[in-house]
């Protein structure tokens, strides 16, 4: 496997670009997919956003300065893409972000690509009640098992702040699940 700096160099060089890009896609497609899926919930939307994310990465790689790690830069693009996708979708349907989320959750039960049991569905509903930031932190820490340091670089938030968000998120989820 290429070192990250070499991979970035190859991505910027027209001669090696396509091979390097394929390597990049192969390395990150699954991780980024599951990250996006946890935000948009449905497979078709996640597929759209994932493709857009890689297109953006490809187009903007020349502007990548290497101030952060490549993977956290890509995660950041994926997060922004997923969130703006949801905003655009709710605007097109003329409904609020919350309403869109409720509809997506209702459809989840009938989704062929959701095989969760009752408790997994309840957990998704509980996560949906969290503010955006806590939702992201919870998904990244709990399901994707990223380290606080990694999340901190992706979301550009202090580790302390992230711990607070995660703590609040788990408390709210627990309260939701015990009251429900």
């Amino acid at each position, binding site marked *: 496997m290429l070192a990250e700096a070499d991979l970035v160099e190859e991505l910027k060089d027209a001669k090696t670009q396509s091979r390097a890009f*394929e390597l990049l896609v192969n390395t990150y497609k699954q991780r980024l997919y*599951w990250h996006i899926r946890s935000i948009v919930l449905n497979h078709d939307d996640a597929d759209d956003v*994932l493709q857009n994310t890689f297109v953006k990465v490809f187009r903007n790689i020349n502007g990548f300065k290497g101030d952060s790690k490549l993977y956290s830069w890509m995660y950041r693009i994926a997060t922004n893409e997923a969130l703006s996708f949801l905003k655009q979708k709710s605007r097109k349907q003329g409904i609020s972000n919350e309403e869109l989320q409720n509809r997506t959750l209702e459809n989840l039960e009938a989704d062929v*690509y959701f095989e969760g049991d009752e408790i997994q569905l309840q957990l*998704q509903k509980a996560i949906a009640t969290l503010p955006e930031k806590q939702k992201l932190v919870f998904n990244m820490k709990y399901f994707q098992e990223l380290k606080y340091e990694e999340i901190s670089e992706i979301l550009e938030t202090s580790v*302390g702040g992230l711990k607070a968000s995660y703590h609040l998120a788990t408390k709210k989820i627990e309260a939701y699940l015990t009251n429900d």
Partner: protein
Amino acid sequence: METFNKNNPFKTPEDYFEGFNEKLQSKLSEESISLPKQEGFTIPHGYFDSLNGKILNKIERTETKVVQLNPFKKYYYVAASIAAMVLLIFGLNWNTTEELSFETLAEADIESYFENNTFDLSAYEIAEVIPLDELEINDMLTNRLEDENIVDYLDENTDDFEELNLEDYE
């Protein structure tokens, strides 16, 4: 072992202590929620195998799209600047009427253009064309933040004040 000592008048049901551990375990598991570690999402068979091709197609498609969009963008800027000039020069002198004027048409067109077209612009791309040094924070807020809003926000997002000091929590 039904009584603790001979002075104790109380008794327990037979085999009470033998079954206690099990009962306690089941009680504990009822109370603590065991959260699933999986989200339950699945993907179509072979999805990741076909993904690379789809991304490359999309890159080719969007590159052609950019070329087509460019001349149109120029007209849009010209139209917007003319509309802005008209607004500046005549705006104060014109009586507002219900009739359609060039002014209202241009504004409505611009608004509906933004509403109905998917620009596919990310925050990064928008940031590239907006001169940040000319922006005031209030330009980005549709409503100015009142104290009441801030208190509401804190109320909603923090459970109690101690939780704000979590730097050393873990």
